[in-house]
């Protein structure tokens, strides 16, 4: 008898048959099969209620004598294979009292029974012949979560696993003693049973696949327990809960959990205000669950997550929270391509992983396992004195799938394990002189991981390569430290080199300026006295070029190294540059300047523009324009010089980019188009020149973007089409080997889809284009967003929602470039996209739905 009508997340217990409703017919069938075959395998997905069915349904029905042929006298040895199946069997047999007083539970009895069981497949029969059951009595061995045997067989002891199963099968086949075997198993392991001899045959004979509850049966499971307690559930709530349950396998435990929370809430409210709800027949206030309670606990989906968060928040400090996090991470297991599952773990290991004291760990576990919570089992307050071997487990896998915090932990843990595995492997290769030490991003990532995760040896043992555990962790950490030392050294020497370069550029500059002052005078006089010119001019030109080169180097160094420079140094260099910029003007004005000098000046202006771009757009445009003027002069000088032509197009593009950033779109477009005109010519002249074709595609891309922004969709589509042709060409040429080309092609398809949507074109076609883009570059958030929009507008809401959700999950980690060059989040991008759609009067009822999702 239970004090509470709903068990919550944990399975029903054997003594809770009075609140177990809805499975009566299933229990009848279970008994029928068990009686006929002395064996029964109850299989089903996780969360379908196998354990409850057997424990609160089948066992009480046996006790009640419903299996008339066998009578009502049953001993039940209830076990999970866990980490020591044979021991678990021996323990459960003694605990079942099947051997009466003859065999106690003291260690010697256990050891003796264990030995008998291990003698051979008929070990159990032999034990029962030695110490017979009372007359008319039966023994049921119930192996709950039988699937644990597969992990045991694979990872720990294959021989013992085989012996354990052989013993079960042999016990079924005999009729000398009244032994029945029942097991529960997740259906996804059914195929694995073939690793054991005779087990598949035995299962074939008597298997019960736990059916889904019908709506009526689920309604009974909701209302009847409350009625046993003199309460009730409002019909509106019953229907709401039934409607909220999806086809999800977690529905039953979630339902039980929400009901438990509501009952607590409602019966708690009673003690405060008894008069409000009326009094039941037995004088106890009558509890009636209503929609109000349902909303209060967060409905079907949030009830569990918020309840678990509540428990987490109860922990008193960050240290305890961290202990909790580590415990839950250890208790879940991620397997490639499979659902996350539980991974029961002895207390000893949890203590090792959390680096906390036993008492501390127990305290945290109890917060999550206390009655009314039971997220973890067992509750160590009441369980027989916990030992370091006590197995701690998550009570139900639905917690792993429904508790948002835990879901994130599991993802983090998987990443962490990944980082470690890579580190361990590289360390091993390094020792064998097959790998370099970590540097750059690898190193940074690993150091960051070590700092935040603070991995321990106990933790690493779980993930390390099998057979390598010993010292692998120490080796990995030593390797990491060595890598860090190497990297520091390398960085220090590079820093020295860069500083040298800077000094060199400065010295060069000073030398050049000094030289220039001297020669500038001479140069001017030379201008005046042309007759003496030849030799002198030549020398003056040489120095002038030195001077220009010096300025160019200085500018380029600033542009490249700006982030690394101390602010004071940067300021000084900028000042120096500012003072000498007028020299560039001089060169520009100079009629007889050599082409080389002119080009150096032009590229210097461009570099100056780049430097100014962030801080002062106006000055940047001025600098680019100065460069552009020189480029124009050079082109005039020799219209056939392809390099100069290209320079000119670059200048147009640079100006276009600044204007684009300032949202001066028509002007930006004009510049991009001028750049395009030049690039078209260049591309036509040099058909085989891939670089030039790429340049051309770049401009088409820019024009597409600006045209979209201007809502000129025909122009945008035309440009995108051109870009597509070129990108396809390159993609064909390199057959998917060039990452860049593939990505850009993906981008073009996304744009085409976007234009189609915006212009109210065929949504089917938009989906096709978007899907092509997405296939080409599934990682790019932009192609994802567009694909989602296309699905949405094409009434494929499910597909769309999937992608939106994925995007939202990554929104904090990844920000991506929208049309403007500033990175923005997925959420922002989507809402801007929607704004744009509205602007263009593209409406769809799904948009509002997604906006709610975004909130």
């Amino acid at each position, binding site marked *: 008898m239970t004090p509470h009508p709903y068990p919550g997340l944990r399975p029903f217990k054997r003594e809770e048959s009075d609140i177990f409703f809805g499975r009566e017919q299933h229990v*009848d069938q279970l008994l029928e099969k068990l009686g006929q075959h002395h064996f029964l395998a109850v299989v089903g997905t996780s969360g379908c209620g196998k354990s409850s069915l057997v424990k609160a349904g089948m066992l009480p029905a046996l006790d009640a004598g419903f299996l008339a042929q066998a009578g009502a006298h049953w001993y039940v040895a209830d076990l999970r294979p866990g980490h020591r199946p044979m021991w678990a069997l021996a323990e459960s047999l003694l605990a079942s009292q099947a051997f009466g007083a003859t065999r106690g539970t003291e260690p010697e009895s256990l050891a003796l029974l264990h030995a008998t069981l291990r003698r051979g497949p008929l070990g159990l029969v032999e034990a029962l012949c030695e110490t017979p059951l009372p007359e008319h009595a039966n023994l049921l061995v119930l192996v709950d979560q039988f699937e644990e045997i597969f992990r045991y067989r694979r990872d720990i002891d294959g021989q013992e696993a085989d012996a354990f199963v052989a013993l079960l099968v042999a016990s079924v086949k005999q009729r000398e003693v009244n032994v029945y075997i029942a097991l529960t198993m997740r259906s996804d392991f059914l195929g694995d049973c073939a690793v054991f001899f005779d087990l598949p045959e035995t299962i074939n004979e008597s298997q019960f696949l736990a059916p889904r509850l019908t709506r009526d049966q689920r309604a009974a499971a909701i209302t009847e327990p409350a009625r*046993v307690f003199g309460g009730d559930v409002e*019909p509106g709530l019953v229907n709401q809960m039934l409607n909220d349950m999806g086809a999800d396998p977690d529905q039953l435990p979630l339902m039980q959990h929400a009901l438990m929370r509501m009952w607590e809430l409602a019966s708690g409210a009673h003690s405060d205000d008894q008069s409000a709800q009326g009094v039941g027949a037995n004088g106890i206030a009558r509890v009636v669950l209503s929609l109000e309670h349902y909303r209060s606990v967060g409905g079907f989906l949030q009830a569990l997550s918020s309840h678990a968060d509540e428990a987490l928040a109860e922990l008193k400090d960050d240290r305890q929270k961290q202990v909790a996090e580590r415990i839950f991470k250890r208790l879940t297991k991620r397997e490639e391509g499979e659902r996350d599952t539980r991974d029961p773990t002895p207390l000893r290991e949890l203590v090792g992983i959390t680096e906390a004291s036993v008492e501390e760990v127990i305290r945290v576990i109890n917060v999550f396992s206390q009655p009314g919570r039971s997220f973890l089992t067992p509750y160590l307050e009441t369980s027989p004195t916990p030992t370091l071997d006590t197995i701690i487990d998550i009570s139900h896998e639905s917690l792993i799938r429904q508790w948002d915090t835990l879901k994130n932990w599991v993802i983090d843990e998987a990443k962490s394990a990944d980082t470690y595995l890579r580190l361990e492997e590289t360390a091993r290769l390094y020792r064998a002189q097959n790998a370099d030490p970590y540097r750059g991003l690898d190193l940074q990532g690993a150091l960051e991981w070590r700092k935040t995760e603070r991995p321990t040896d106990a933790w690493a043992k779980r993930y390390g390569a099998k057979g390598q555990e010993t010292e692998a962790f120490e080796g990995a950490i030593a390797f990491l430290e060595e890598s860090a030392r190497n990297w520091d050294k390398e960085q220090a020497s590079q820093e020295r080199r860069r500083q040298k370069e800077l000094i060199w550029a400065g010295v060069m500059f000073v030398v050049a300026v000094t030289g220039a002052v001297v020669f500038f005078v001479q140069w001017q006089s030379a201008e005046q006295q042309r007759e003496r010119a030849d030799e002198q001019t030549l020398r003056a030109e040489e120095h002038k070029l030195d001077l220009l080169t010096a300025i160019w180097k200085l500018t380029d160094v600033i542009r490249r190294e700006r982030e690394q420079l101390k602010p004071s140094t940067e300021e000084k260099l900028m000042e120096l540059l500012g003072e000498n910029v007028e020299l560039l003007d001089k060169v520009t004005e100079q009629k007889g300047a050599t082409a080389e000098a002119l080009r150096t000046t032009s590229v210097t202006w461009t570099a100056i523009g780049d430097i100014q771009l962030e801080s002062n757009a106006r000055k940047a445009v001025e600098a680019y324009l100065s460069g552009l003027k020189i480029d124009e002069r050079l082109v005039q000088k020799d219209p056939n010089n392809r390099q100069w032509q290209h320079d000119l197009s670059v200048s147009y593009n640079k100006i276009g980019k600044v204007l684009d950033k300032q949202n001066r779109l028509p002007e930006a477009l004009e510049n991009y188009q001028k750049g395009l005109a030049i690039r078209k010519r260049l591309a036509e002249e040099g058909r085989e020149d891939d670089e030039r074709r790429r340049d051309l595609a770049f401009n088409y891309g820019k024009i597409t973007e600006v045209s979209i922004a201007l809502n000129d969709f025909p122009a945008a589509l035309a440009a995108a089409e051109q870009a597509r042709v070129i990108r396809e060409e390159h993609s064909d040429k390199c057959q998917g080997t060039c990452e860049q080309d593939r990505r850009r092609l993906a981008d073009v398809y996304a744009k085409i889809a976007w234009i189609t949507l915006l212009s109210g074109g065929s949504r089917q076609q938009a989906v096709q284009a978007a899907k092509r883009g997405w296939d080409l570059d599934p990682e790019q958030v932009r192609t994802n967003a567009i694909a989602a929009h296309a699905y949405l507008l094409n009434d494929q809401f499910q597909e769309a929602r999937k992608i939106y959700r994925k995007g939202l999950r990554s929104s904090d980690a990844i920000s991506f470039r929208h049309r403007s060059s500033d990175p923005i989040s997925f959420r922002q991008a989507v809402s801007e996209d929607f704004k744009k759609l509205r602007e263009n009067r593209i409406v769809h009822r799904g948009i509002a739905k997604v906006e709610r999702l975004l909130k």
Partner: protein
Amino acid sequence: MAYVPGYKNDIFVSYAHVDNIPLSGISKGWVETFIDNLSTKLAQKIGRTDLFKLWDDRLLAQNAPLTPEILDALKGSATLVLVLSPGYLKSPWCQREKNAFYDLLRSKNRSSHSVFVVHRDRVEHESCPEEIRDLLGFRFWEERGKGKEPRIAGEPVPQPTDLLYWDELSDLAGKLSHALEQRRGSAPIEHSSGLLPPRDPTEPPVKRPKVFLAEVSDDLYKGRKKLLGALEQAGAEVFPKAPYPLTAVEYEEALGRDLGGCSLFVQLLSDLPGRELHGSTKTIVTAQLELARSLNKTLLQWRDRELDLKEVEEDSQRQILEGPSVMAISLEELQYEVLQKAFPRPAPESHAPLPTGDALVFVQSDAIDQALVKEICEVLDRERIGWVVPSETESPERVRHEVEDLLLGCDALMLIYGQSPGGWVRQQLMNCRKLRHKRETPLRALAVFEGPPPANKGELGISLPSLRKLICHQGLDASRIAEFINDVRSPSPAA
């Protein structure tokens, strides 16, 4: 000679020529293609191509007046298929054709079962001629969402994947062939009961459950059709058999006639309230629901899981959708629920009926304590108190049903705790606790009779209110049972 004796033609297809103008690049018009496909399907149904005759006016000039030739053909046709569309309604020629046929029907006093309406395109219900408004129709168009023109199935040419087209066509062919066979006298007037024959021919014919599958708003036409198919296939008789007239009085009259005899009321709901009844504020949705409620029918209502109730514009419709019997499940799931309810699993063969009398004691024991039970029953006999013990049966299902029935039907319960294990007694008490709230009146008495042997009788670990323990470890002591018997006799419940 037609398939139906006495007629020149079996089927006359009346349609507007505008509906048969081929779209550019396509060689045949919609109606012509339709007739070809219908002929093929009908031939398959009836079994021979030359068995039926279809009046074909393809050779006639367009817009020809209702020539005597046509009128003749019309008169000589057993059934009329009418291709309804806006074009049809606008063509006076078609109207005349239709009227002529109706005149014939009236003069020959035949029912409108010979007329089949093919809805080629959406036609406002109100603008339909009265005679055909309420006829069983076959809808070849579907909604594409608000503000959009409907999609016409099979246009420009029927694609093999156009499920709507082929489903409707095949339904029409089915109904047509049935009508022809009826007219020919080779089929019973009633529809046959489903596809599956009864398993055992010696079994009495299964009674066909009557299900009321409520008329729906236009957007749910397809869903209803699917459910209808499943129910008919399973052998249910489904109402309404044809649309009801939309005048409030007539509608409710017809509705009452059909709904009264149905055991189950099934209604599909969407955000649309459905057509309004003339002369009433009710819509077809509310009218049907209200009547079903007032007749206390078992309601099975359904809405789409994806439907966002917050977005439903009409308040009254939202209230209906929020009702406590509206299931938000997939249509397949609904179909399962409906079939379960319409064809319930036969209950297990029931045990002998409970004796009726003043008081009935359920004496429950494990087989091992039979001797003790015998003694106790003798005491009860002497006291003239009725008793019942479980019958001997092997099937767990029957055992359970019997125990449950006895627990619910008895006036008092006595559990015999002799040699049976404590676990057994405990479990009986648990079952009693589990089922108590389902009893109409509380138990008058509840007792555990603790008989010999005295050993091994520990605490049961369970106690229910008003549970008596009758300790008779040395053997039956009638005085101990006296109190229990008093309780049984007292009309007021023990609790």
